């Protein structure tokens, strides 16, 4: 920095201008790429959502909120919306509950097999969504492994129907999302010094108090990141709800596809926007609430 740095270490205005210029040059191409690749299509989709569907023309250009009104005034679509939020919330909380202890063990283990354990956590992501769902299908069918095993063990008298239920979908989504939660938490917990935990114990804190007062607040950035990641993935899940939930179970992403398949782009676009805005708002609110509640 030398000449460009003032006595108190702050950059001169000339140097600040130069760094702003180079920063702009660095982020410029990516910004243009994102603008063209994401923002522009989103704006087009927003415009479509204000159009009208026509079976012959497919889309009539107009400015109308009727697609949004239709969604919010129909119990069926409300139910799909609430089911999506409920499933995404359940999956996120269960991922956090199941993922935190696992991430903690992975972060603290000194085992030479640590890399192997991490690979095992990531293993489900090596298989495509549809193939993974096919595995669950063979397990959950009324004549699947689970049902037959329960009957064989005498724990059930009749075939157990897990397939095409909300439970099947939640289990399926958790199997996809859990690695994201675990890996995010593990990297954050690893960065928290073990001595901080030992200090808490030496001051008389029990394991629960240490977790609540030390580990949880320090791991909060990772928890928030993991929650955001898994919540967004669950809200937008497509293959798992379709394959494991069956026709009777509906979530927002399959609804979007259904409408697009029918050629009803305006309504499909409106549903897409409702899904996206809901995801963004709930994500922002939960992050804000968690930050405010625990960052004291």
């Amino acid at each position, binding site marked *: 920095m030398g000449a460009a740095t003032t006595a108190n270490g702050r950059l001169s205005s000339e140097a600040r201008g130069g760094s702003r210029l180079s920063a702009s040059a660095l982020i410029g191409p990516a910004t243009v790429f994102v603008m063209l690749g994401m923002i522009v299509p989103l704006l087009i989709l927003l415009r479509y959502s204000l159009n009208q569907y026509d079976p*012959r023309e497919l889309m009539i250009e107009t400015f109308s909120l009727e697609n949004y009104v239709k969604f919010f005034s129909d119990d*069926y679509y409300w139910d799909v919306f609430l089911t999506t939020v409920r499933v995404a919330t359940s999956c996120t909380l269960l991922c956090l509950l199941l993922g935190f202890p696992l991430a903690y063990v992975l972060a603290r283990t000194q085992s030479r097999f640590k890399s192997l354990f991490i690979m095992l956590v990531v293993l489900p992501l090596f298989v495509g969504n549809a193939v993974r769902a096919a595995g669950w299908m063979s397990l959950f069918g009324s*004549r699947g492994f689970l049902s037959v095993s329960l009957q064989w063990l005498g724990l059930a008298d009749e075939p157990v129907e897990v397939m095409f239920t909300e439970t099947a979908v939640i289990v399926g989504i958790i199997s996809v999302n859990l690695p994201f939660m675990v890996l995010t938490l593990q990297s954050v917990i690893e960065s928290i010094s073990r001595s901080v935990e030992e200090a808490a114990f030496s001051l008389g804190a029990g394991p629960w108090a240490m977790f609540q007062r030390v580990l949880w607040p320090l791991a909060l950035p990772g928890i928030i990141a993991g929650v955001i990641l898994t919540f967004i993935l669950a809200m937008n899940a497509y293959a798992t709800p379709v394959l494991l939930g069956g026709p009777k179970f509906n979530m927002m992403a399959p609804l979007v596809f259904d409408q697009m398949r029918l050629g009803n782009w305006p309504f499909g676009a409106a549903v897409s926007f409702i899904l996206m805005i809901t995801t963004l708002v709930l994500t922002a609110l939960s992050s804000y609430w968690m930050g405010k509640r625990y960052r004291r």
Partner: protein
Amino acid sequence: MGYVKKGYGPSRRQMLQGAAGLAGAAALGAGVPALAADKGTIVVGTWGGDYAKLLTKNIEEPILEKEGWEVIQDQAGDPERRAKMMAERRLPRGTTDVQGLSGSNIYQMGAAGVTAEIDYSRIPNAPHLLDSMKYKYGVGQIYSGMVGVYTPKVVPDAEAPKSYRDVFDPKWGDKLGIIDIQYQYTMVAAALANGGSPDNLEPGKELLVAARKAGCRIYPTNEAFAQAMKAEEFGVGIMWKARTVQWQNAGIDVKAVAPSEGTLAYVSGFAVPKNAPNMDGAYAYLNAMLEPSAQEAFAEDMGYNPTVNDAKIPPELNARIGFTPEQVAALVNLDYAYMTDHDVELKEWWDKEFVG
């Protein structure tokens, strides 16, 4: 959507890129691939999987590529391809020359002004095409019928359904299986079963709701339906006869019955986008798919019936995949105009009132 290049030779772009190398190799007398694409490139929008492979095996390699065409497949489900056609419709030049679509989607794309009216004088094989397969905006390639199906493991032959009415009878309870993605044909079949017609589906709704209340099972896809039938979760339903033949070949104990109300016909064919970059190629494709050899091969490989009158189907194969002259005369087509106009509301009823 994946592009799959077909052909003996490289694409033109690759040819340009490798021109020097190829020229050098040729000068040295080295063996180079035959440059078959001297007539140009045909881009075909099609479903993937076995169907795409059979297009290659029965139409593209043995006929078009020998004639000097290079064929590229744009593989995707039909919703995605229709969306792409819609998005491209204002462009002076699209990206595909022909698109594989079902009969009702051929009608929908034509009505939306996306596809061109077919000029049958440009198809030398058109005189052999069955009249019922000549559409204004597309050409039927193969057809089958929606028949009653049952597995003798669950439903004894003596109790086998003989009509759509028998299939949708609430007496079956959870022994009746219904496929979610087949909602259009299921609703029309139920209408025929209960005194309705392809443009009057109301009577069928009543029957479907009764079957639903009795506990019928609903499966998301044809494959899930087949898997569940194999596992004896249910015993009766409706399905394309061609698909039934494929399932029989795969070892599933399933039998087909042509319903007494008349069998609903399913037609799959090809349409030409108005902005197809290679119209000559598009018509070459339409003509090639109607060649007797291609039609016979599709009957053999896939169990679908030919749409031309000069294909020779062995009697024993015809007995498995085909229909008697009486059954052919009684084939019932969807009312494509009605389905196009009411598809969204029919699906809403299906989702809300039937499935939900």
